[in-house]
Structures are given as structure tokens and as C-alpha cells.
């Protein structure tokens, strides 16, 4: 055993959490795992999803309130046996066609689905993150969803006569979450739409945190209210510029809407999706090659003008 692999050594000198995407995914993900690639339109970890496809994982349960293109790609690649979700679509464009092919026709393989509503999903994540047996929600009464998801149940309030629907905790094996910047330990700053990034990270056993750029812990400490989650939640930190393309990172780059419209066309046939995966996922080694292939013009077109927030004064105490 090499010295650095010795348990005592790792306690005395914990290794940096900063690693490559390939190494983070290889360490964190196993066949059959439940995975949560978080984000509400914003900061979707596409780079991580593509690495999972390249590595050839199978039998994954994908969990996410808003499965979008990267889940469509994972499904089309045959990595997936189940999807737990609340809205599966191409945001602002239309259907998620590979997801539909799997559900409607079993192509490339049948997938099981477990369906919630948005609040049902994030309440279940909250229960997972907060170590609760369930969360009550004022949702599902009158909806047919309860007839098709045994996990959605009803309890009577211990404080009155009310009956209220409840959801069980969702505790993914692995969450892959993103933020604009984070330090080497995994303290992360996010601004713009936070979606369910925090709840997913705190509910999961293992967390991979993708950041657009690494920053100093001093930067994090300068604005602690900006911190989405702290290092104790995070196992692996990956610096991956443009890691969310074709989705966006607020203040860094805009959504590549052309890619969303292109996917609407590409995803109409399973064969076209395979050709797309061959070119854009299997055909590149990593995110850097993907970006080189995408080209400078495409990335420059996504540049946004700056609109800095006014500095705040935390006070020197």
C-alpha cells in the first residue's frame, strides 16, 4: 500500500477534493445507482452527464424534477432503467422525445417511471436532506397521480381532523450539482435560479460539485449568504468551464437555444440520436474536446454583458 493510500495518512492529510470529471464520475457512480443531476434550466451538469454516457453505465435510476436534454441523451444511450420526475420536457421547446420513445415504445429499453409534481419532488428531497420520514404537502388531492404512485400517501394530522397527502424522502445515491464558483473543499457560491441544487446535494450520499471556476475560500467567506452548500456536503469538486452548455450559467454565458431547437429535430429518430451521441459524446475525450469542437464563435455568441450586483458591507468585527 502506497503511503498516501494509508487511512491514517488520509486523516492527517486529506487529499484535495478537486479532481477531473472522469475521476469524479468513476469514483462516485456505480451501475444501478440512483442519480440526481440537479438544476432548473440553469446550470444543468451536461459535462457530467456526457461523461456518464461515455463511461457506459447501465441500469441507472435518474431522478430530477425537470429531466431535460441530458436525461434524454442518457436514456437514448441505454444507461437508464428508471426515471423519477415531475416534468419531462425540452424547456420552452416541446417534448422529450427519447424519454417518450422509452415510455411509449420501450426504445432502446423499457424504463420504469415514478411520477410526482414539482412541489412533491422538492418536498421529498427536503425530507431526504432533513432526515424526515415524510413531508406533508397540499398537493395531489383530486389528482389522478395518486392512483399511479404508491409512494404518495395520506396521513391524518396529529393536531386536528385534517387528512393531508405526504411524500417519502428521496435520497439519491449520487447528486451531481453545479454552481458558478466554489473553493477546493466544495464550499460553493450560486446566484440566479437555484432550483433544487441545495436539497439534492444534502439528500444524496455522494456529491459531485461542478463549478465554472475555482475560487479562494476567502472569496467564499467574503459573502457567506451567497453560499449554496458547504464543504461537508461535497465529496468531489470538478472545475469545468462551460460545463452546463447548452444550458446556461447566470452571468457567465447564456443558454444555447439553437442546441435546444436542434435537439427537437435530432431526437425525432433513435438513429439520429445515436449519430449525435457518436459525434458529440463518444467522439470526444472530455469537455475540453467538446468545447473545441463546438468552436469559439458558438461560445462567443453566448457571451453576456456584465451586470454586477452592488457590493454589500459585511462589516469587519
Amino acid at each position, binding site marked *: 500500500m502506497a503511503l498516501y493510500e494509508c487511512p491514517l495518512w488520509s486523516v492527517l492529510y486529506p487529499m484535495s477534493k478537486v479532481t477531473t470529471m472522469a475521476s469524479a464520475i468513476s469514483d462516485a457512480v456505480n451501475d444501478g445507482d440512483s442519480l440526481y443531476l440537479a438544476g432548473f434550466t440553469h446550470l444543468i451538469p451536461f459535462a457530467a452527464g456526457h461523461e456518464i454516457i461515455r463511461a457506459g453505465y447501465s441500469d441507472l435510476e435518474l431522478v430530477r*424534477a425537470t429531466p431535460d436534454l441530458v436525461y434524454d441523451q442518457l436514456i437514448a444511450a441505454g444507461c437508464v432503467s428508471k426515471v423519477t420526475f415531475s*416534468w419531462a420536457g425540452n424547456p420552452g421547446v416541446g417534448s422529450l422525445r427519447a424519454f417518450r420513445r422509452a415510455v411509449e415504445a420501450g426504445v432502446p429499453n423499457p424504463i420504469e417511471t415514478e411520477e410526482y*409534481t414539482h412541489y412533491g419532488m422538492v418536498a421529498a428531497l427536503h425530507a431526504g436532506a432533513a432526515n424526515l420520514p415524510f413531508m406533508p404537502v397540499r398537493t395531489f388531492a383530486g*389528482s389522478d*397521480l395518486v392512483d399511479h404512485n404508491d409512494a404518495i400517501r395520506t396521513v391524518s394530522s396529529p393536531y386536528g381532523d385534517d387528512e393531508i397527502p405526504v411524500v417519502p424522502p428521496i435520497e439519491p445515491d449520487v447528486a451531481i450539482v453545479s454552481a458558478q464558483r466554489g473553493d477546493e473543499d466544495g464550499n460553493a457560491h450560486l446566484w440566479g*435560479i437555484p432550483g433544487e441544487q441545495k436539497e439534492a446535494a444534502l439528500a444524496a450520499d455522494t456529491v459531485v460539485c461542478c463549478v465554472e471556476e475555482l475560487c479562494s475560500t476567502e472569496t467564499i467567506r467574503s459573502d457567506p449568504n451567497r453560499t449554496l452548500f458547504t464543504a461537508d456536503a461535497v465529496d468531489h469538486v470538478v472545475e469545468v468551464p462551460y460545463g452546463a452548455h447548452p444550458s446556461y450559467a447566470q452571468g457567465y454565458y447564456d443558454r444555447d437555444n439553437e442546441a435546444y431547437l436542434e435537439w427537437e429535430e435530432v431526437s425525432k429518430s433513435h438513429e439520429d440520436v445515436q449519430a449525435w451521441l457518436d459525434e458529440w459524446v463518444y467522439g470526444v475525450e472530455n469537455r475540453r474536446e467538446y468545447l473545441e469542437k463546438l468552436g469559439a464563435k458558438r461560445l462567443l455568441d453566448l457571451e453576456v454583458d456584465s451586470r454586477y450586483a452592488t457590493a454589500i458591507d459585511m462589516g469587519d468585527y
Partner: protein
Amino acid sequence: MEYTDTELMVTAAAEQLEDDDSVLVGIGVPNLACNLAKRNHAPNLEMIYESGTIGSNPSSLPLSVGDPVLASGAVGVESMLNGFSYYLQGGRIDVGFLGGAQVDKYGNINSTVIGDYDDPAVRLPGSGGACEIASNAHRTIIISPLEQRRFPEEVDFVTSPGYLDAETDRADLGLRGGPDAVITDKAIMGFDDDGEMIVERLHPGVTEADVRAATGWEIQFADDVERTRAPTDDELRLIREELDPDGVYLD
């Protein structure tokens, strides 16, 4: 000026909104309607999006409810958990917009499957936040083109509860609000005391027979059906030149 069905739906939906309303906005017609209302008669309209942006003031057309233009310049941005719990479930949303593949005579909406759930003919995106909006907003406005297949007597799947059926009281199920108006391309409907959809206004040039032919049940008409107001030239100019200059949602 000549106008399209979609433009009429935008102005009709805008008219439903009042100043100081907090509105959970959707993409497309609802977004255009809210922005139009804000420019005209409801400057204090507070626009909230499902992604958690509060008091959005988009400087360009958002491509989805999670567009960055909705976060830049907003008065607040909440996580999904906070948005759905504190704002929607907490009763802080006056109006929610809903659409779907099917709407039935009691205003129940299907955005889940066409056909059988376990063996669907068409798998639709699912609820997202629609079930919560239908359950928790103080009133909801449904927007959909009027067609037989979109307006069956009973939806294949209740994703978002309306008035359910003539016997059920929403309040008994712990549901707030309910559908208040249905904006279509032919007419505007409301709901009677039993929660059944009833035609209140016909769009210019549309007959009762046109509406009957496009509805999947014997739809009832109010005693005093009025005509929908046509969009004004000023409204059309605002929509075309400022709110959707590229015609993304108007074609």
C-alpha cells in the same frame, strides 16, 4: 388593424389581470398577457415564475420559465422548495395560468398522458408545478385553443384539479381557488355554481355553432353572451414591436 387569434387571446388574458395581482406566469401567451397588462392597466402586477424568480421584469422574451432574463433584475430569487411552499402553498399567489393537452367541462386539466397511464398513446411532460398552481392559487386562468380533441367531456387523466365533478367541493379536499376563466381562440368561458364551464363571451365573428362544433360536450351558454373586445391598435403595436418583436409566440 388586423389581428391573429393568438393576439386576441393575449389581450383577453391581459384583461383578466388586476393591478397589484401576484401572478404565476407561464411562457408564451401568459407571459405576453402579463407584460401587456403591466404596461397598460396593471403597472404593479407582480410576476412570479415557476423557477422561483419573484418580481421579474424581463427585458426580453424569456425562452422558458427558467430563463436568466427572469432572474436578472428580479426583486428576489427563491429555491423551488421556498417558491412552492412559501409563495404558492402559503397563499401568496393570486392568479396562476394553466394550459394542457386536454381541458374538460369541469376545468380539470390533463398534461400527463393521452390514453392509458401504463400504456400511453402519448406521454406528455407531466404536472411540473401545474397541479400545485391549480390547487393553491386563489384563481386560475386556463389558456388553450378550442378544439374537440382538446376539450373532451372528461380528460384522460386529471393532472391539475378543476372543479372535479358536480358533486365534489374543492374546499372539502383542501384546495384553494379554482378555474376562473378559460381563454380560447373562439370564446371566453367561466364556470357556473356547479363548476361547469359556461360560455360568457364570443370572439368577433364567432357563432355559438362554431363553439359547439369545437367542444366535446353540449357546452352551455350564459343568458347574456357578450362579444369579446377586439385588440386595439396600441395593444397590437405594443405586442408586435416590443413584447414579441421576432414573432416567436405570435405565428
